[in-house]
């Protein structure tokens, strides 16, 4: 338990240090290792400190109640390292330090994923994660080598590419792949739904909430070094919007197909990373066509979504963890009726779902509205890239609808209705230590939603280095942004007031009347059972049937004969990217490495020969090219 104190300390350090460093970027040179907090780092520090702190408190409650975690000390050790490296990643002001922190963070989180290593699925998830993380790091290594070409100290201040467009595009691509792997953008997301559910819930919350955001941070940081924004080629923006739309729609479709609550949440993280990169893409497009409103709103929307997602996704993971803890299962088809046994957790999950679907008055709505505003500004411009914003609006609208379907399933099937299993019926509310962080996160969700002008102002401040413009300057349709968000604030408050008034009206109307209880009517069926309810699979079946490639595989055993014995219908879903792309890729690699195995003779002499050849080749390369 002493570790909790350490965590609180770490949290408070970050907490108290923050206001000091926000206004002035400062750096302490420390040999070649320098730290520093500028606006962008500070912006990312906020959610890291908050989610990390909440996660620690949550883990305090989570581990105490004899969970599946066998070694709490092991857990705390790596959790603290993980947390420290996370902080280091966003504060590093030096390429080398950044890479070390990046790598250390990956390794620490790998160990955290492997905490419950007795289970084979967890082990395989861990390895997938490790491999993916290292493939990403390889790209980053190349990136920093190229960046640091003329900058031997590798300090961030010295970076800055003035080179040709080809070099900059190469750097952009490397950054996109390297950080995209970590962020979980769609073609590179496969590790994410494996690793996040496998980790203990507090770790999933931190990983999904903030760790993948460091990918976004890294991308933004590198963008700072790539020269004048107006000179960035147009296809960077397209690529980001395209990837964002793909990640968003793909991620949420795959999330919809999941029956495991935590896997569902992990896939929805892919979706939200898609939303964020869509915003970044709109930013780049706006910069390119010289439309400041589109650019600024896109960037702010993306950044604000980083915050929002950090809060609501950690909230959702924490409540999912609480559910898994209380019932011992994460399968939606075995849950249900939890709202009676666990009212607080249900309320927390509800708040998280509403925020995630981007519904007013919660925080997700604000960031999505910013992105829509960006697209609107793009559409209203007389000429230029109007296709991109239209695509963005279409994709965002579709994502919104699908996310709604997805979380209607998660909350409606998982928490409402009748309990589908004995464990779910016996579920009991979580302990205080677990409840507090969930409550805090839920309140923050609503708070950001209701204090949108402030949030937008702060976001624009954080983005100042990337987009030196203030909200008062930007106009959409003749409106200044602060005025616009004040109006939205009024609308949100009006919504809340109306809700309260209607509730009161209902209460008063029902006051002196007969209110009875009975069983669900169900079209007159007299004896409804829990097994007759709609399950998650049946709820989403029709929706998935529209996206044919994603349709789950059906295993069925039809009733046969005059006196059928038993019939069964099961569905199983698989990640389409995994199935169509990665499985083939791995098989190809396996074949290649089989061939390479011949090199491994097992004789020392041969190995020495390899060494010698390598050294010779290096020498030749160095000498041959450096004159």
């Amino acid at each position, binding site marked *: 338990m002493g570790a909790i104190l350490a965590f609180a300390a770490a949290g408070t350090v970050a907490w108290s240090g923050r206001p000091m460093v926000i206004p002035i970027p400062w750096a302490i040179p420390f040999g070649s290792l320098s730290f520093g907090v500028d606006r962008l780092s500070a912006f990312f520090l906020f959610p890291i400190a908050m989610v990390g702190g909440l996660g620690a408190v949550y883990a305090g409650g989570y581990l105490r109640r004899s969970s599946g975690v066998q070694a709490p000390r092991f857990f705390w050790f790596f959790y603290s390292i993980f947390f420290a490296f996370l902080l280091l990643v966003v504060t590093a002001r030096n390429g080398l330090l950044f890479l070390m922190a990046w790598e250390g963070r990956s390794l620490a989180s790998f160990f955290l994923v492997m905490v419950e290593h007795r289970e084979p699925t967890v082990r395989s998830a861990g390895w997938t994660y490790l491999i993916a993380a290292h493939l990403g790091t390889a790209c980053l290594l190349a990136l920093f080598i190229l960046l640091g070409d003329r900058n031997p100290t590798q300090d961030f201040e010295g970076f800055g590419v003035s080179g040709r467009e080809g070099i900059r595009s190469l750097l952009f691509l490397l950054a996109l792949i390297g950080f995209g792997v970590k962020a979980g953008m769609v073609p590179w997301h496969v590790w994410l739904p494996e690793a996040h559910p496998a980790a203990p819930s507090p770790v999933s919350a931190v990983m999904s909430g903030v760790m993948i955001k460091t990918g976004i941070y890294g991308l933004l940081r590198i963008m700072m070094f790539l020269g004048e924004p107006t000179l960035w080629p147009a296809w960077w923006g397209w690529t980001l919007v395209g990837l964002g739309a793909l990640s968003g729609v793909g991620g949420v479709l795959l999330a919809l197909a999941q029956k495991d609550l935590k896997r569902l949440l992990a896939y929805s993280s892919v979706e939200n990373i898609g939303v964020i990169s869509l915003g970044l893409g709109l930013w780049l497009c706006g910069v390119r066509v010289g439309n400041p409103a589109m650019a600024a709103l896109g960037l702010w929307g993306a950044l604000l979504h980083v915050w929002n997602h950090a809060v609501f996704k950690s909230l959702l993971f924490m409540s999912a963890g609480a559910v898994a803890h209380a019932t011992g299962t994460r399968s939606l088809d075995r849950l*249900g*009726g939890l*709202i009676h046994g666990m*009212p607080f957790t*249900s309320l927390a999950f509800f708040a998280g*779902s*509403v925020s995630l679907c981007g*519904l*007013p008055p919660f925080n997700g709505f604000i960031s*999505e*509205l910013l992105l*829509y*505003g960006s697209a*609107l500004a793009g*559409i*209203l411009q007389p000429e230029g890239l109007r296709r991109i914003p*239209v695509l963005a609006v*279409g994709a965002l*609208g579709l994502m*919104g*609808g699908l996310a*709604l*379907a997805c979380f*209607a399933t998660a*909350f*409606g099937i998982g928490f*409402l*209705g*009748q309990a589908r299993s004995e464990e779910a019926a016996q579920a009991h509310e979580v302990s205080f230590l677990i409840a507090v962080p969930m409550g805090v996160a839920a309140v923050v969700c609503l708070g950001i939603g209701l204090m949108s002008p402030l949030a937008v102002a702060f976001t624009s401040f954080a983005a100042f280095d990337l987009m030196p413009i203030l909200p008062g300057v930007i106009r*959409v*349709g*003749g*409106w200044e942004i602060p005025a*616009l968000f004040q*109006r939205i604030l009024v*609308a949100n408050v009006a*919504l809340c007031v*109306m*809700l309260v008034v*209607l*509730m009161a009206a*209902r209460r008063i*109307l*029902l006051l002196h*009347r*007969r209110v*009875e*209880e*009975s*069983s*669900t*009517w*169900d079209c007159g069926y007299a004896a*409804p059972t829990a097994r007759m*309810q*709609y399950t998650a699979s*049946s709820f989403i079946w*029709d*929706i998935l049937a*529209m996206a044919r490639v994603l349709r789950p595989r059906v295993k069925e055993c039809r009733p046969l004969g005059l006196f059928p014995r038993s019939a069964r219908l099961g569905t199983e879903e698989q990640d389409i990217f995994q199935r169509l792309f990665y499985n083939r890729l791995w098989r190809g690699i396996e074949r290649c490495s089989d061939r390479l195995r011949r090199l491994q003779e097992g004789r020392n002499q041969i190995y020495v020969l390899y060494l010698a050849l390598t050294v010779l080749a290096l020498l030749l390369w160095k000498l041959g090219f450096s004159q």
Partner: protein
Amino acid sequence: MTPAFSFVSFGLAITLSPLLLGVIQKTKAFFAGREGAPLMQPYFDFVKLFRKGGVYSRTTSWVFWAGPIANLAAALLSLTFVPLGRIPAPAAFPGDVFMVAYSLSLGRFLMVLAALDTGSAFEGMGASREVRFSLLAEPVFFVSVLTLAVVTQGASLSEIYGTLPRHMVHQGISTIWLAGGAVALVLLVENARIPVDDPTTHLELTMIHEAMVLDHGGIDIGFVQYGAALKLWMFSALVAGAFFPFSSARPFLEVMGGIGGVFAVAVAVGIVESSMARLRLIRVPQLILLAGVLALMALLWAAR
């Protein structure tokens, strides 16, 4: 145009929207050769419903009664952004169409949850269909409204609709009508009208919205139906504004024109309902897809 008229039109929307349901019923009765229920029947129904007590299933929780309330609140909020004819809405800001769509989504989300809260298989089925169709309709709605925004260079719904007649004269009606057609199809989908869903049917296998509220009664179903009426009014106003280029310098005539447009749309819906059969469920996504292609066409045409 004084803001007073905006509030007048809002007040009319709140009071007259149940009448819209009566007009549709009357139209259908006319085509079926029946006398039909009186025009004021929806009002009588509301009075009846709001006087009742309640019966609640033991399976349900607070979500069950919060659904109708959120639905109604969301409908009221969105109504404040929807202009009637050329009269601006009481509230407007750039991009308010997204506010409208998302607050409607909030209502829908809670209604779906309220349906799932009962644990009834029928309501689960209705909820599943509801989210399935509405998730397709939402992007279509966005694209068609954005098309109108491109045509008029307006950013809020009130701006867009306020200048539509002028643009109809300058740029021709084809784009605007195409977009309006797409919104009209969205109206049919969102408001459970006939080619998509039959509001009168009680055949469980085909119904969508009806199935979701099977267990609601008394005040709750009153809230649901009033919310539905407001939503119908809202969409009718949007469709009517795009189809009828009525514009007048005198606010009073504007109000009358706007209301006339809304009721004309209601009559049109009644005619569609009398002349068509409900589509098979698997054809419904095709209908929405068609609306999407129309909206896309309008957009391409506007931006050509």
